């Protein structure tokens, strides 16, 4: 047991001891009248003086960590936008803490957190500063560390919504947290949703929600996910919570085959008794990629257009191509018999009735259903395919231009066009033939097809090929709707007939592009033989396809795209996507380059490095041939850190440097997570990292403090003082005396009293 100068027991026992000794001395002095008596009495008296002196020294050496006059507690107040509506609660809690500190004789200092601390004179000043300030919890804690001694206890009043760089673990103040916005009595709230920034079509994507609810709530809840662009419900799950909120719930969503940006809304089906039903919903977004693109390509006759486009599609390892080209008409009679032919029956039924919806993209080139006696119903199925989200490209040609099934209900429904000429005689083509000029429509064309080249180069390149079209199917524009764009017209020079050449439209949930003229293969031949802009053909078709499958807004002209997701405080996931066709590095290519017919093989890994001074690691390909790479990595802090992702070496004519992407971690992650009204997980992480504790919610502190609060704070103060005492123990007794001059003065006074008594009594 340690006694201190503040303990009454000490003074009582000390006083009693002194009195006892003095009484003994006096008694001895009076009772015995011999020569030894005065000396014996003086000895007892001197022993009493020494005991007094030792007691005083010992009291000074004993630690007094619970000396409450020496304790100081810091209260960090989150004064940000998300806390503004909780000002009243903040003041109540701050008052409670301030009152307790005063009673406990602990000094409570209040600060507003930000990049620097703003000191307050007291809890009364909360709310007097303008709302809102930036919510920089991590920065605020670091600012506190610079100001106070290590191990100083602090209490953070916050909802955990962090807009700054986040917390750095380290030694400094001990941070305890009191959460705001976390306690509900008559309400369910969807507090947060964490959706990965990149997800993959046809796969299950895990995500996490944080739900707040009243204590002991047990009713199962229903979460509904909706695509805000289409209004379609994309997921519905039932889940349960228990105990006290807020609570994290792991969920998963099965994605369909469609790619592109997904803007969604998550909503917990409200219960009738809820006081606030607006906080049941949150928005989220993600980019959906396809690991594989399933393409169906059906062509009515073999020609160079088919050959070139097929090779272009096959060159991309991401494409799963199923193609059919009609090699023989019903009236064609090949010599030598059927047994010599390698031809297979065209599986029209299987394609149009069963498997069409399994594809992401359908390319139909110069195909006349009536030639083969195929029902018109198949055209309706094609339109249904598009309406349900499929991508469709139609290339007109001689055979389709003469086909009656397209006359009504196809071109007009999809593109608002009406075919002009229909051949009345067999073998007479409906195509307009002759010298023609393609007229690109300014900004629309530039937006779609000028992605890979600088403007001047782009103009020259397209100028090289706009005179090559020599046949087209003529259309009148019947109905210009808002969702239809005519990107180019074609003009016959002989009679100045002007007709739409390339038309795009949104149809239901899908997209459709029409080319009314054959011969885009000539662009490849024309530019390739000159060695100038040989990728013009590739870039055109790449852009057409990306638009119809809705991936033009995910990845544009970049060769390499990187997305970073935060998995936990210091753990991150990086997803990189390699685009084999988009390459600004290939602009301006001359005579050297990649042949058209070679298949592009993706590298099996990418290389990443954390800058500055970080280790190198590998991003592995998610599945072979996908061009999508993933890896997880750790970083103590995002502040000032960058991630450098690059190819391992030159690839497909692209140098490793030109496909390199450097991403600032902070910028990549900020704004990606949609934090809502509170983030209790973050507060728990802070407390854990900084050796503190979660001390409850704001509603626990409106009237009084919780016992755990007092226990934790006092223990932390004690520990802090123990460290100081420990340091002090190292000093010697002699140094202690020298450090305390008044001690010497007491000793001198006691000695003087003793000497005076002896002299007065005539003692030796």
């Amino acid at each position, binding site marked *: 047991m340690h006694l201190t100068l503040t303990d009454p027991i000490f003074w009582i026992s000390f006083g009693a001891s002194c009195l006892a000794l003095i009484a003994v001395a006096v008694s001895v002095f009076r009772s015995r009248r011999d020569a030894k008596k005065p000396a014996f009495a003086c000895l007892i008296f001197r022993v009493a003086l020494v005991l007094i002196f030792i007691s005083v020294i010992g009291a000074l050496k004993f630690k007094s960590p619970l000396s409450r006059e020496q304790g100081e507690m810091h209260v960090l107040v989150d004064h940000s936008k998300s806390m503004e509506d909780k000002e009243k609660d903040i003041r109540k809690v701050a008052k409670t803490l301030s009152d307790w500190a005063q009673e406990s004789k602990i000094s409570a200092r209040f600060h507003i957190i930000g990049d620097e601390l703003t000191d307050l004179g007291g809890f009364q000043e909360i709310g007097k500063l303008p709302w809102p300030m930036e919510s920089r919890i991590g920065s605020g804690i670091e600012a506190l560390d610079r100001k106070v001694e290590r191990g100083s206890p602090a209490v953070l009043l916050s909802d955990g919504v962090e807009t700054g760089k986040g917390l750095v673990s380290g030694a400094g103040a001990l941070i305890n947290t009191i959460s705001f916005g976390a306690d509900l009595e008559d309400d369910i709230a969807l507090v947060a949703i964490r959706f990965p920034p990149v997800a993959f079509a046809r796969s299950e994507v895990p995500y996490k929600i944080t739900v707040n609810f009243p204590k002991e709530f047990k009713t199962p809840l229903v979460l509904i996910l909706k695509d805000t662009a289409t209004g379609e419900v994309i997921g519905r799950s039932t889940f349960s919570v228990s105990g006290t909120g807020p609570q994290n719930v792991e969920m998963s969503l099965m994605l369909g085959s469609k790619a592109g940006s997904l803007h969604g809304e998550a909503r917990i089906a409200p219960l009738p008794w809820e006081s606030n039903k607006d906080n049941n919903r949150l928005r989220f977004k993600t980019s959906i990629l396809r690991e594989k693109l399933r393409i169906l390509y059906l062509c009515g006759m073999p020609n160079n257009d088919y050959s070139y486009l097929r090779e272009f599609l096959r060159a991309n390892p991401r494409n799963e191509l199923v193609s059919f080209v009609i090699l023989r008409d019903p009236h064609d009679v090949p010599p030598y018999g059927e047994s010599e032919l390698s031809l297979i029956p065209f599986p029209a039924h299987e394609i149009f009735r069963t498997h069409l919806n399994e594809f992401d993209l359908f390319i139909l080139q110069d195909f006349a259903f009536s030639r083969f006696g195929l029902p018109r119903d198949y055209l309706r199925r094609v339109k249904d395919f598009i309406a349900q989200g499929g991508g469709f490209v139609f290339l007109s040609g001689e055979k389709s231009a003469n086909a009656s099934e397209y006359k009504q209900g196809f071109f007009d429904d999809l593109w608002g066009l009406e075919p002009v000429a229909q051949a009345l005689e067999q073998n007479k083509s409906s195509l307009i033939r002759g010298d023609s000029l393609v007229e690109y429509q300014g900004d629309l064309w530039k937006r779609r097809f000028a992605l890979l080249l600088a403007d001047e180069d782009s103009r020259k390149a397209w100028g090289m090929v706009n005179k090559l079209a*020599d*046949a087209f199917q003529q259309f009148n524009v019947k109905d210009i709707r808002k969702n239809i764009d005519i990107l180019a017209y074609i003009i016959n020079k002989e009679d100045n007939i002007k007709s739409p050449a390339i038309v795009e439209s949104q149809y239901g949930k899908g997209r459709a592009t029409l080319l009314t003229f054959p011969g885009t293969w000539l662009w490849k031949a024309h530019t390739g033989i000159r060695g100038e802009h040989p990728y013009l053909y590739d870039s055109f078709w790449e852009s057409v396809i990306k638009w119809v499958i809705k991936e033009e807004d995910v990845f544009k002209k970049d060769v390499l795209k990187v997305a970073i997701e935060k998995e936990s405080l210091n753990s991150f996931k990086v997803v990189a996507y390699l685009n084999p066709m988009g390459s600004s590095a290939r602009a301006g290519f001359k005579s050297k380059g990649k042949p058209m017919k070679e298949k592009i093989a993706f590298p099996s890994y990418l290389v990443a490095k954390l800058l500055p001074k970080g280790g190198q690691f590998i991003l592995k390909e998610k599945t072979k041939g996908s061009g999508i790479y993933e890896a997880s990595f750790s970083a103590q802090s995002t502040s000032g850190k960058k991630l450098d992702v690059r190819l391992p070496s030159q690839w497909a004519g692209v140098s490793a440097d030109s496909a390199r992407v450097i991403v600032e971690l902070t910028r990549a992650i900020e704004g990606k997570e949609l934090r809502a009204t509170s983030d209790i997980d973050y507060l728990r992480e802070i407390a854990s990292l900084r050796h503190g504790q979660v001390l409850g919610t704001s509603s626990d502190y409106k009237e009084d403090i919780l016992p755990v609060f007092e226990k934790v704070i006092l223990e932390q103060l004690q520990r802090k003082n123990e460290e100081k005492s420990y340091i002090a123990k190292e000093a010697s007794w002699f140094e202690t005396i020298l450090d305390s001059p008044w001690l010497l003065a007491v000793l001198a006074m006691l000695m003087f009293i003793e000497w005076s008594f002896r002299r007065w009594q005539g003692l030796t």
Partner: protein
Amino acid sequence: MKNYLFLLFISVFLLIASSPHRLIAYSSDRLQIGIISGKPDSLENAYPVLWRQLARFLQTTTTIEPHPVFATPVTPKIKKLEKLGIVFLLGDASFKGFSSQEREILKRWLILGGGTLVIVNTESAPSSGPDALVRKEVSKLFPDKTLGSIPWDSALFRSFYLVKSVGGLTLNARFLEGIAIGERYAIIYSPNDILAPLIKDSEGSYLFRCYPGGEKQRMETVKLVTNVFLYALTGTYKKDVIHMPFIERKLRRK
């Protein structure tokens, strides 16, 4: 006098109108091929009537739509090749090879322009002359590649007919050779003359006998030539997975 002038005018007009060198209305959706021979700018090559007959044959046998001017004489110049996807090179005694500029243009057309070059040795006798020159030119075009035999499971031998032997006027070689760029053969070389067996006279009878296989050899030749065109226009289509089981079954039955 006036009558003579009128007749002269009509004759000139008809002469111009019938000139095969004028492309009346070029259409990129119809097939047109180029012919490189020892006599440029002229169709006075070894087979003047062949191309018309071949166009007719393709039109009645397959869904290919030949251009009204199916074959046009060309040289390896930009303006000549830029609108063609298939070019035949007739390797005979009059062929003297290419200049370096012509070679460069031809190479770009093959690699970047997507073209297909079909070389036919039209010398019926086993002669090293045209064959050696062809090999020399090809090696100059592609110094890092050599002509190699095209395997029998190539899509070339299955693109329309199932072809099991190369055919030709005389069977100097038993395989085709080629140079592949990626998966496709950009250059296809037949050491045998596979064009002569297709020529018919005005009564429809074949002009030349095939040796030693006779009509069976001619049949294989016709099938192979048909396949060459379909291969140039469809690529590796017949190697797609969906076709394989059917083709394998048929081959086993044969």
